[in-house]
C-alpha cells in the first residue's frame, strides 16, 4: 500500500474503460502520472517504472461526482454542534461560503469515497431565500485548500415551498423578494460611491451579500434554484430570463411536465431520481422525471442529497436507468455533466489526457449492488479502502470483540 501511495506513475490495464467523453474501450489502459491522466487507450505504452494494476475483467470509470449534499459540512445530522452548512439568522446569505466550515477530517468522507464518490458539491443549507455559495471538493486532502476544486462553484437560492417564510408566506412574495434583492444588487453596483457615503435608501440585503450576487448577475456564477412545482420552475425560468442568469434547476420534481421548455432554455437540472413521494410542493413527482428530462435534451445531473448516503449515488443512477434513462446517460449524469454544470469539466468528469486522475476500478457495472469498488484514485493517489465503518466491522466480526 505504501508503494502504491508513493507511486508517481500508475498504469491500470486490461479493463473495460468508460471514459464518458467517448465510447467505451475494451482491454484498455489508463495511465496516470503525477496526479493527472496521461493517456487512455488500447495501445498505451506502459513505462517501465509504472506501478501496474491489473484490471482484467473490471470496469474503469471516472470518479463519481455528487452535485449536492453537505459532505464535509455535517457529521451527525441531529447534532447542531456538528453542522456547518448554513446560516440560520438570515434569509439572504449570499456572502456565506461554505469552505471554512469544511472539515477535512470528517468521518463521512472515507465512507463515501470507498464506494466510488470522489468529488462532491459542498452545498449551503441555510438562508431561507439565498443559501450562499457552494464549493466543489475532492474527497481527499488534509486541509481545505487541498480539498477545494472550485469555490465558489455556484450560488444557491430557493423557490420551493420551504422558501415561503422568506417571502412572507406566499410564493409570489418569494419571487418578489428575490427580484428585489437582484435589483438592489445592481443598484448597489452602479452606486457604490453613494453607498459608502450613506446616500442611498436602505437596500434589500447587506452590501456583502449584494456584492456576492454580482457574479451571478453577470452570468459568471451559476445560480442553483431549488424548485419542484411546475409553476415554481416556470417562475425560475422567468426570473433567469429577466436577469440573464446561468440558471441550474435543482429538484425540479415536476420538470417532466415542461421538459421541452427547460431544454429550450438550455437550463441543466439536478435530480434525485429515487424521490417520488407526493407533497403539495410537487404532487406530480415521479421516478420517470430524470429520463423524461434527458430525452428532451436537458443536461441532467443525478444526485444523492444526503451526505451520509452519498455512497448511494450509484443506486440513484441505477434506478434512473430502471425508469428509462439510458445507462450511458446515467453515467454521464454522475460524472461529466456535474463537472460541466459546475464549471470544472476542463479538469474533471471524464478519463481524458490532462484531466485530474480521479479514477475508480469496479468489479462490474458501477450501478449494480453486486459490484465492488476495487481501487479508488483521487488526484492519482490510491485511497485505502477503509473507513470508521470498516473498523467497526472488523472489531465485531467475531464476538465478543477484542477491545
Amino acid at each position, binding site marked *: 500500500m505504501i508503494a502504491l501511495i508513493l507511486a508517481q506513475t500508475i498504469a491500470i490495464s486490461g479493463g473495460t474503460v468508460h471514459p464518458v467523453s467517448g465510447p467505451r474501450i475494451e482491454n484498455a489502459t489508463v495511465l496516470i502520472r503525477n496526479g493527472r491522466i496521461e493517456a487512455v487507450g488500447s495501445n498505451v505504452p506502459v513505462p517501465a517504472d509504472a506501478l501496474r494494476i491489473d484490471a482484467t475483467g473490471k470496469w474503469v470509470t471516472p470518479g463519481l461526482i455528487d452535485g449536492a449534499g453537505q459532505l464535509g459540512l455535517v457529521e451527525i445530522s*441531529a447534532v447542531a454542534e456538528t453542522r456547518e452548512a*448554513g446560516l440560520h439568522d438570515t434569509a439572504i446569505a449570499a456572502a456565506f461560503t461554505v469552505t471554512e466550515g469544511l472539515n477535512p477530517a470528517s468521518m463521512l468522507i472515507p465512507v463515501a469515497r470507498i464506494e466510488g464518490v470522489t468529488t462532491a458539491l459542498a452545498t449551503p443549507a441555510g438562508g431561507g431565500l439565498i443559501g450562499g455559495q457552494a464549493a466543489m471538493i475532492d474527497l481527499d486532502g488534509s486541509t481545505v485548500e487541498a480539498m477545494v476544486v472550485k469555490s465558489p462553484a455556484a450560488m444557491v437560492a430557493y423557490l420551493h415551498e420551504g422558501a415561503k417564510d422568506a417571502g412572507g408566506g406566499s410564493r409570489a412574495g418569494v419571487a418578489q423578494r428575490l427580484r428585489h434583492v437582484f435589483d438592489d444588487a445592481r443598484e448597489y453596483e452602479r452606486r457604490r460611491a453613494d453607498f459608502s457615503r450613506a446616500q442611498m435608501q436602505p437596500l434589500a440585503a447587506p452590501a456583502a451579500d449584494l456584492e456576492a450576487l454580482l457574479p451571478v448577475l453577470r452570468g459568471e456564477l451559476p445560480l*442553483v434554484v431549488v424548485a419542484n412545482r411546475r409553476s415554481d420552475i416556470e417562475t425560475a425560468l422567468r426570473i433567469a430570463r429577466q436577469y440573464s442568469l446561468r440558471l441550474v434547476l435543482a429538484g425540479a420534481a415536476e420538470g417532466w411536465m415542461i421538459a421541452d421548455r427547460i431544454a429550450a432554455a438550455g437550463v441543466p437540472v439536478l435530480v434525485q431520481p429515487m424521490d417520488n413521494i*407526493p407533497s403539495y410542493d410537487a404532487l406530480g413527482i415521479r421516478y420517470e422525471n430524470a429520463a423524461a428530462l434527458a430525452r428532451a435534451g436537458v443536461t441532467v445531473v443525478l444526485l444523492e442529497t444526503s451526505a451520509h448516503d452519498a455512497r448511494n449515488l450509484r*443506486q440513484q443512477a441505477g434506478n434512473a436507468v430502471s425508469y428509462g434513462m439510458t445507462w450511458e446517460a446515467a453515467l454521464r449524469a454522475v460524472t461529466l455533466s456535474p463537472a460541466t454544470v459546475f464549471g470544472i469539466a476542463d479538469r474533471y468528469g471524464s478519463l481524458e489526457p490532462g484531466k485530474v486522475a480521479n479514477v475508480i476500478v469496479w468489479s462490474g457495472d458501477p450501478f449494480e449492488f*453486486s459490484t465492488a469498488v476495487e481501487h479508488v484514485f483521487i488526484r492519482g493517489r490510491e485511497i485505502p479502502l477503509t473507513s470508521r465503518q470498516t473498523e*467497526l*466491522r472488523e472489531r465485531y*466480526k467475531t464476538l465478543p470483540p477484542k477491545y
Partner: protein
Amino acid sequence: MKSLLALFAVALAAGCATAGGTAPAPAPMTAASDTGRVPYASTYARHPAPPVLIRHATILTAAGTELPAGAILLREGRIVAVAPELEAPPGAVIVDARGQYVTPGLIDTHSHLGVYSAPGTAAESDGNEATNPVTAEVWAEHSFWPQDPQIPLAIAGGITTIQALPGSANLIGGRSAVLKLVPARTVQEMKFPGARYGLKMACGENPKRVYRTRGPSTRMGNMAGYRAAFLEGQHYQRRWDAWQRERKGEPPPRNLRHETLAEVLRGTIYVQNHCYRADEMAQMLDLAREFGFTIRSFHHAVEAYKVADLLAAAGTAASVWADWWGFKEEAMDGIQENAALLQQAGARAVIHSDSPSGIQRLNQEAAKAMYAGRRAGITVTPDQALRWITANPAWVLGLDSVVGTLEPGKMADVVVWSADPFSVYAQAVRVYNDGWLVYDRADPTRQPRTDFELGQVPAPGRDR
C-alpha cells in the same frame, strides 16, 4: 432517502417511529371480550380471482429452494404447488414469466404508511400521540388512512403485508396494525386476519428529547418509565385474572393502557422495540426478563451486530436498515454488514424500511446488505437474503405459518420481478395479494390509485 423538500438542507431527523399489530388470534382478555365479539375486528375478505399459473420463471421460494425454470399455481388465495412443470387448471390465467423471477410478497415490519401519510402536512401527522411518555392505549389502526397515496407506491414495490406502527416519541407508543396492503375503504378491510397486535416501544434519544422538560429526560429515566408502566400492567393483569377466576361482584374497571400492557405480559401482543444502541438492547432484554415477556424484534437496531449473540440467545429478531447511519448520535455506528453479521451469529435478521420511499425498494435494500456481507466474507445466499424481507418479517409478526415463503398452503402473496430481484434494474411487474393481481406494471388499469390522487396527481403515463 430524503425527500425533495430536504434537497440542499441538512436532514435533521430520520428513523423515528415503530410499533405494530392487529387482532390477535387469542382474543385479548378484556371486559369487551365477554360479549363474545372481538372489538375492531378485521373485515378483510379475499378478492375473487381466477386461478393463476406462472410458468418458466426463476422461482425463489425463501424456503431453501430455487427453481431455475419453474411454475407456481395460485388458486383461491393459496399457493397450490411449486414445481418445474404444472398443468393449468380450467379457467386459469397463464403467465409466461420467461426471464423473470418470482418471490413471496415482501413484508415490512416497520412502516408508517397511513399514520404519516402523504402529502405530509400537520393534518396527516397521526403517528405520535406525544402527550404522555406512555400511551399503550392508542392503536395505530385508529389513525390509519387507507387513502394514503404512498400505499400504491409500496404495492408497486412488491409489498403485500406491513406493520404500521406508532412513532417513537413515546416510551410506549401504542399498538401496531398488521395489514394486507390492498386498496380498501377502511382499515378494517385491510387488517390481516388473525394477526396479533404489536406494541411499539422506543429506547434512547427520541423519548428523552420529546419529554426533556417533564421527563423522562435521561436513559435511566426511560428505563424507570418502562418499569413503572409494566408494574401497573402486572397489577391490572392480576386483578383481572382473579376476577375471571372467581366472577364475583362487579368486574374491575377497565383501563385501556393497562389492558394493552397486560396482554403483553400474557404473551398475546408482541413487543416491537425501536432501539439503536447495543447496550440499550441489553437493558431492554433485562427489562423483558424482569416482567416475563419476550421482545419479538428490535427495530432499527443499528448496533445489533455488536450483540448478535445476545439477540440469538434471547430469540429476539432485529429489523434493520441496510445502510442508514449517522443522522443522530445513536445511529453513528451503523454498518452495512449488520444483517449479515446477525445471520452469521444465528440471530433472525430482517430488513425493514421505516420510510415511504425505502418500502418501495426493500429488495434493493436487502441486496445491498447481502452483497456487503459477502464482501466481508460472510456467506449469504439469495434465499437467505430473501428471507430478510419475507419469511423473517413474517415471523416477527407471528405470521410465518401463513405468509413469507412460496410453499403449498401458504397465502398467495406473490411477486413477479422483471429480473433478479437483487439487481438494481429489477422491477416488480406483477404483484398478487391473496391471489388477487393488485398491481400490473404493464397495465395502467391494474395500478391502484387512491382518492387523494384523483384530479391532483397525474396518472402514470399521462400528461396534464
